[in-house]
């Protein structure tokens, strides 16, 4: 099979012997994979070339999302299912339209994940701490979180001037992702 993308849960405790890693893949001996974490959120976007049997076994798990092999197909009638799947993972997805390709959608999703990574690396925090949802407004966040969120955005040369106290996490993450620009996001040889 060709290399495909999957979204799977995070496992591990983060120690050297039990690093955070994508569920299922670490148990596939001899299989190469590349993973993009969603900062401290509990999921990975993974690129891997599996055998048909390995793929079938993987997608039989209820907590695995398999992205269609053809990333350039439009999402079409799967739009609502895609939105539901992403929002369940705290990835805002209301912007998905039926005419978008999976590649375009995944680039925005990946950019959201990359912003979460910077928030982790720069501020040492996760987005969705206790009680925080996609609907939480910026002015409802703890002051320290607000400062770190702005700091993470500015460290990526993102413009934060449009954010206001009533901006929701949903809006903030999408706006930060849109500022990624035209540069490819590469994962395991797949360019988004």
């Amino acid at each position: 099979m060709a290399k495909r993308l999957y979204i799977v849960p995070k496992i591990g405790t983060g120690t050297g012997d039990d690093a955070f890693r994508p569920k299922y893949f670490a148990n596939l001996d001899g299989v190469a994979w590349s993973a993009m974490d969603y900062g401290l959120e509990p999921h990975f976007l993974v690129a891997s070339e599996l055998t048909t049997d390995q793929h079938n076994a993987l997608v039989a798990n209820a907590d695995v999302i398999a992205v269609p092999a053809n990333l350039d197909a439009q999402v079409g009638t799967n739009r609502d299912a895609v939105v539901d799947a992403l929002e369940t993972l705290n990835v805002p997805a209301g912007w998905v339209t039926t005419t978008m390709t999976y590649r375009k959608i995944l680039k925005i999703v990946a950019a959201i994940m990359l912003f979460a990574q910077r928030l982790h690396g720069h501020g040492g925090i996760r987005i969705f701490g206790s009680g925080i949802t996609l609907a939480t407004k910026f002015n409802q966040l703890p002051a320290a979180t607000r400062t770190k969120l702005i700091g993470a955005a500015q460290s990526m040369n993102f413009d934060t001037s449009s954010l206001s106290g009533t901006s929701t996490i949903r809006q903030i993450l999408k706006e930060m992702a849109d500022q990624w620009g035209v540069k490819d996001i590469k994962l395991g040889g797949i360019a988004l």
Partner: protein
Amino acid sequence: MSTDDFNRSNADPIGGNWTTPSGASTFRIVSNSFHTTSSGSDPWIAYWNADTFDADQYSQFGVLPAIDKGGPAVRIGTSTLNGYMYTLRQTNLTRLYKRISGSYTQIAAYTDTATTTSVFKISAVGSTLTVYIGGSQVGQETDTALEDGVVGAMSSTSAANWDNWEGGNVEGAAAGQPTIKRWGGIPGMAINRGVW
């Protein structure tokens, strides 16, 4: 470019052009190669202190007995103990990790045909991490957690034993950070903004 062949008297800790950040365990020189100390605990970190480095940088080692949980590292935080590290061969697998706030995240697993004399290299250019074995690219990933730091070595285990380090800036690297693109700058973005 900075280099160290470690061909000098045993030293524990290594000292000289290498610094162990506060809170990390030390490396040492044993029999003209670079070792973790046998005592201590995760993480073992040493960075090259004789030069300054741009954010776009690389680090590489020649390998002696290979281990899974340590190797050349880039964007090492001198106070945070963060960094990206390319770990060495284990049953034909190499691995890319990041260490953030005391926790390790595995970014990738690569199949390879590395030998114990291969040169393992990791580079960070903007948000692009690239790893090489023997000069050939093994993998390339996007990660934004760490934006800058220094170069050297990192390990989560005391079994490290490497040689012939080299590190430096990635010359001529294109800016890796995304450029600012406001709503009006990308076709379709103005339409999408109203979907909320």
